C-alpha cells in the first residue's frame, strides 16, 4: 500500500531539512579538525619537532673506569675487575614468577634476593634495567646466556667492580668504595650526573674518598636512538670520557704486609717514614678488615663482628688514634729546655724516685730513683724526675712550642680519613677548654708525655724523622698521580742548634745500644744499620700497679720511636701497641723488626740481631704470615 503523495512530500522535505543540518554540522566539525591539524602541524610544529628530537635520542652516560691505585713499586692495591651480572628489562618479561623460577635453577638466587629485585622493579623508571644478580661466576653467566631464548628480557652483562687484592693490608689507607648515599648527595651542590646512575660507587673512606676527584674520571656519553620503552635501537654518537687517573702511593706493599703481620694480633699501629722525603713506606693499623666485603655489601653479621671487637678493627689507629706519647715526648722537653738555655747537657739532677711540687708528689717510674742524672742518662734510662725539673724551669709554653716545631699537634695533609690533630696543651688552651688555670703539675705531667698531651703514631714518626734530620719534613702518601711526581713537603731546617741535636741523638743511640738503655735488648748489631730510639709507656690509669694484674683494657700503652741507620738516617719508625704494657718490652722489638725489614727490603738476616736472640727471632720469622693466600690479613686471621 502506498502512502499519500502529501506524506511522501512531507517526509522528503523533513529529511532534506534535517539532512542538510547534519551535513552542515559534520562539515563544521571537520573544519574544527582541520583547524586543529593546522594549529598543531603548522603553528606549533617547531615545539613538537623539538619534543620529537628528545624522544628519539637519549643521552646515556658511559661510566669512566676508576683510576687504579699502586704502591711505590707498582704493586696493584686497588684494581677494577670484570664482573658478570644479570640484568632484567621488566617490560620485556612476560611472566616474572616463571622467570625467577628459571633463574633460580641457573644462578645462586635466594628468596630475599628476589624480594629485593621485585622492590627495585617497582621503583625503577620505565625502560630502566634492573640488576638481578651481581658478581656471578663465568659458569653461571654462561648458563644464563645459553638459556637466553627461554628467558625473554633477561640479559647477561659485563661490568667493572673494585677489587682490593691486598685485602686487609690497605683497608685503613686506601679505604673502599661504596654506593652513593642520599646523605652523600645532599652534601654536594650540582652533583655529577654519574652519581645518580644506579649502582655507581664512590670512595667512602681513605684514599678512595680523599682522591675521589682524581680517581673517578669524567663520564663519557653516547647518543642512542631509543624506542618509547627506552630500549636502545642503535648508537648514533659516542664521546668517550676520561678514565680516572691512577694514583701511586709512597707505601711499599711488601713492607706494609710485613708490618700488618708483625702487629697482629695486637691492637696496634705502626708508621715507617722516609726521613728525607717524608714518604710513608708503611702506615699500618691492626687488626684490619677485608675492604672487599664492604664493596660487595657487608653482611650484618660480619659488620656486627667488626664493631663489637674490642680491638676496634675499623679504627684507623695510625692517624686517628691519639695516645699520650709518654717518654717518647722527653726529647721534646729536653730540646725545649736546652734551646731555651735553662739547662745544659752536663747539668745533673738528683732523682730520689719522686719530686714534690705544690704539696703533690710526682713519681719517677723507677721507685728507688736514678740517683744523679744528666741529659744523656735521663734519656737513656728514661728518668722522669729529671724532666720534672726541666719542666719547672722551661714552662709549658716552651715545651708545647717545641712539640709543634717537631710536628706534634699538626694535622698533616695526607689523603686518609679522620686524620687527627692531637694536642699540645698551652695555658690559654686549658683556660678556654677547662676554665681552669694552668698549674705547675700540669707542666710536669706534660714533660713526660702524660696529662694533656696527645699524639698520633703518624705524628710520632714525623717527630722522629725531624729529630734525625733537623729538617721540617712532612709526610707524603701520594707519590705520583698518572705518573706525575707529587712534591715533597719540607719546611726547611728546624733551626735547632747542632750541638743540642747531637746530644739528643747520642742519648737516643744509647737507649738502644748501651747497656742500661731501656731498649738495649732491642738493639741492631749489624754495622751501618744501628738504630737510635726511645721507649714510651703511657698510662691509661693513674694508679701505678703491675700491668699483669689488671685487665687488658686498663694496661699501659707501649710506644717506641726510632730512626736508623744512626750515622746516616734513612727511616723513622713509630710503634704504638695499645695496652701492650711497657714500651721497652712490647713495642721496641716490633719496631726493630720493622726497621730491619725496611732497611733490608726483605726479612733481615739473623746476624742483624744479638746472638742470644737468634733462636727466638728465627721462630718468629718463620711464623709470620707474609703471603696473601687464604686466611690472609682479613679479620679472620686474628685469634
Amino acid at each position, binding site marked *: 500500500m502506498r502512502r499519500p503523495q502529501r506524506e511522501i512530500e512531507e517526509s522528503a522535505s523533513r529529511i532534506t531539512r534535517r539532512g542538510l543540518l547534519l551535513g552542515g554540522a559534520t562539515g563544521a566539525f571537520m573544519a574544527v579538525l582541520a583547524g586543529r591539524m593546522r594549529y598543531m602541524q603548522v603553528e606549533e610544529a617547531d615545539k613538537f*619537532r623539538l619534543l620529537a628530537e628528545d624522544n628519539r635520542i637519549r643521552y646515556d652516560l658511559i661510566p669512566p673506569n676508576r683510576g687504579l691505585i699502586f704502591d711505590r713499586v707498582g704493586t696493584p692495591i686497588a684494581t677494577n675487575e670484570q664482573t658478570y651480572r644479570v640484568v632484567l628489562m621488566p617490560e620485556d618479561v612476560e611472566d616474572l614468577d616463571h622467570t625467577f623460577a628459571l633463574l633460580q635453577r641457573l644462578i645462586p638466587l635466594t628468596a630475599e634476593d628476589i624480594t629485593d629485585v621485585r622492590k627495585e622493579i617497582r621503583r625503577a623508571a620505565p625502560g630502566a634495567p634492573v640488576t638481578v644478580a651481581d658478581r656471578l661466576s663465568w659458569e653461571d653467566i654462561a648458563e644464563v646466556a645459553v638459556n637466553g631464548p627461554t628467558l625473554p628480557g633477561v640479559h647477561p652483562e659485563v661490568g667493572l667492580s673494585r677489587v682490593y687484592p691486598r685485602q686487609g693490608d690497605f683497608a685503613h689507607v686506601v679505604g673502599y668504595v661504596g654506593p652513593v648515599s642520599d646523605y652523600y648527595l645532599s652534601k654536594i651542590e650540582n652533583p655529577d650526573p654519574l652519581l645518580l646512575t644506579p649502582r655507581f660507587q664512590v670512595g667512602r673512606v681513605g684514599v678512595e674518598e680523599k682522591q675521589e676527584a682524581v680517581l673517578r674520571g669524567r663520564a663519557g656519553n653516547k647518543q642512542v636512538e631509543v*624506542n*618509547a620503552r627506552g630500549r636502545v635501537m642503535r648508537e648514533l654518537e659516542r664521546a668517550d670520557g676520561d678514565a680516572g687517573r691512577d694514583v701511586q702511593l709512597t707505601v711499599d706493599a711488601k713492607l706494609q704486609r710485613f708490618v700488618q703481620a708483625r702487629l697482629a694480633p695486637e691492637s696496634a699501629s705502626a708508621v715507617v717514614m722516609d726521613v728525607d722525603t717524608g714518604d710513608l713506606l708503611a702506615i699500618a693499623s691492626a687488626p684490619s678488615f677485608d675492604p672487599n666485603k664492604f664493596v660487595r655489601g657487608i653482611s650484618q653479621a660480619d659488620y656486627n663482628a667488626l664493631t663489637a671487637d674490642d680491638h676496634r678493627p675499623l679504627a684507623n689507629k695510625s692517624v686517628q688514634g691519639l695516645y699520650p706519647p709518654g717518654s717518647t715526648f722527653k726529647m721534646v722537653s729536653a730540646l725545649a729546655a736546652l734551646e731555651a738555655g735553662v739547662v745544659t747537657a752536663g747539668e745533673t739532677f738528683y732523682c730520689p724516685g719522686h719530686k714534690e711540687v705544690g704539696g703533690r708528689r710526682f713519681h719517677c717510674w723507677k721507685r728507688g730513683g736514678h740517683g744523679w742524672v744528666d741529659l744523656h742518662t735521663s734519656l737513656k734510662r728514661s728518668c722522669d724526675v729529671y724532666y720534672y725539673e726541666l719542666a719547672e724551669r722551661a714552662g709549658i709554653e716552651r715545651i708545647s712550642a717545641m712539640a709543634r716545631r717537631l710536628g706534634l699537634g699538626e694535622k698533616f695533609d695526607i689523603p686518609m680519613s679522620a686524620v687527627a690533630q692531637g694536642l699540645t696543651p698551652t695555658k690559654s688552651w686549658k683556660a678556654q677548654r677547662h676554665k681552669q688555670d694552668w698549674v705547675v703539675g700540669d707542666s710536669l705531667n706534660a714533660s713526660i708525655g702524660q696529662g694533656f698531651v696527645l699524639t698520633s703514631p703518624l705524628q710520632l714518626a714525623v717527630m722522629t724523622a725531624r729529630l734525625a734530620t733537623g729538617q721540617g719534613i712532612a709526610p707524603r702518601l701520594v707519590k705520583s698521580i698518572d705518573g706525575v711526581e707529587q712534591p715533597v713537603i719540607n719546611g726547611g731546617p728546624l733551626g735547632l742548634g747542632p750541638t743540642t741535636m747531637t746530644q739528643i741523638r747520642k742519648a737516643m743511640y744509647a737507649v738502644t745500644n748501651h747497656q742500661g738503655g731501656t731498649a738495649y735488648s732491642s738493639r741492631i748489631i749489624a754495622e751501618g744499620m744501628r738504630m737510635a730510639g726511645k721507649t714510651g709507656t703511657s698510662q691509661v690509669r693513674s694508679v701505678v700497679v703491675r700491668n699483669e694484674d689488671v685487665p687488658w683494657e686498663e694496661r699501659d700503652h707501649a710506644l717506641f720511636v726510632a730512626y736508623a741507620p744512626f750515622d746516616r738516617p734513612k727511616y723513622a719508625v713509630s710503634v704504638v701497641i695499645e695496652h701492650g704494657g711497657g714500651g721497652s718490652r712490647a713495642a721496641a722489638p716490633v719496631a726493630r723488626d720493622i726497621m730491619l725489614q725496611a732497611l733490608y727490603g726483605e726479612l733481615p738476616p739473623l746476624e742483624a740481631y744479638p746472638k742470644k736472640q737468634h733462636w727466638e727471632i728465627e721462630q718468629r720469622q718463620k711464623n709470620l704470615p707474609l703471603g696473601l693466600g687464604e686466611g690472609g690479613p682479613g679479620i679472620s686471621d686474628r685469634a
Partner: protein
Amino acid sequence: MSFLEYNLKTVPSGLSKVLYLNWAIILLLTTIASVGFLMLYSVAGGDMGRWAEPQMKRFAVGLVGMIVVAMVPIYVWRNTAALAYVMSIGLLVVVELFGSTGGGAQRWIDLGFMRLQPSEVMKITLVMLLAAYYDWLDLKKTSRLIWVLIPVMLTLLPTFLVLRQPDLGTALLLVAGGGLVMFAAGVHWLYFAAVVATGAGAVTAVFQSRGTAWQLLADYQYNRIDTFISPGDDPLGAGYHITQSKIALGSGGWTGKGFMQGTQSRLNFLPEKHTDFIFTTLAEEFGFIGAFSLLVLYGLLILFCVVSALQNKDRFSALLILGVAMTFFLFFAVNMSMVMGLAPVVGVPLPLVSYGGSAMLVLLLAFGLVQSAHVHRPRGRV
C-alpha cells in the same frame, strides 16, 4: 504501508545494476583504503606481509560483499532489519557469556577464520532498525513521547550490553548513531535539547560520585578522562599515548617527514600504531598536507552520501544512508579528535585505514546497504 512502490520498470535489474552503483563512493572508499595500505606498509617498517597484505585481502572480500549486498533490493534489507537487530543483540549476549578477552575487554567471538566483533555489527543493524522503524511509523507520531521512547529503548539496550564489556567508545558511538538517525527522521529538537541538558547533569553526577560508594564509572575510566584533561601530568604513565601521539603528529609540520621516515612511529614511541593511532603516522610522515587530504576524502564521502540520501525519495533508504554516513563520520571524527588530543582515548579505529577485519568488513557491508538504496531508489514520478 510503505513510502515506496517498487516500479520494476524504472529500477535496474540483473547485472545491469552494477552500472547504476554509486561509483564515486566506491572510488572514495578504495582511495581511503589505499591510504590505509600505504600506512600499514610504512608502520610495519616496509613489510607488506605484516599488516598491509591481510588488510588488502579483507578489503577485496569486503568490496565483493558490498556489491553483493548492493544487488539485493533495498526492501529486503528493510524487511529483515528487525531480524538483523535481534541477531546482533543475541551475539552481544553471547560475547558477554563466552567472549574472549582482548585488551582487557570482552569484545569478540572467535569464529576460527575471523574474529567477529558483535558491537561493530550492532552499530549498523541499529541504524537499519531505526530507519525501518521510522519508515513504518506514521509521520505525525514521530515526535510523540511514547513513539520517541521506543527507539530510545532500542538504542539503549545494545548500549547497555556494550558498556558491560566494557567498551565506552562503542557505547558512545551507538548512542550518538541512534540519536542522529532519530534527528534525521525529524524528532522534535526539544527532545535533543532535553537529552543534552540531562547529559550535562549526568556528567556532573559522574564526577560528583567519584570516590564515593556509588561511583558510576570504573577507576580506569576516570583515569582516562583525567588523562584527557591533562595529559602532561604523567607523561610516562596514563597520559603517555596522547602525549606521544601529539608529539608525532605535531612534528610532521607542513609536508611531513616523508614516507617511511616517521621517526616517532618507527621508534615505537607510538602505541597501537597500526590500529587506533595510525592517523598519527600519516600526519607525521605526510604532514598537514597529507592529513588534511585524508580529511577531505572523508568529507567528500560524507558529501556524496548526503547528496545520495537527499535525492532518495524512499524514507527507509534516505534514513539508512544518512545513518551509515553519520556512523562513518562519528568513527573518524572521534578517532581524529582522540589522536589530536581533543577527546579522551577511547578505542575507536580510523575507518578503512586502521588495521582490523571486523570493522572494515562491517563498514563495507554497510556501504553495500547505501549502494543498494542508491541502486534501487525510486525513479521518475513516485
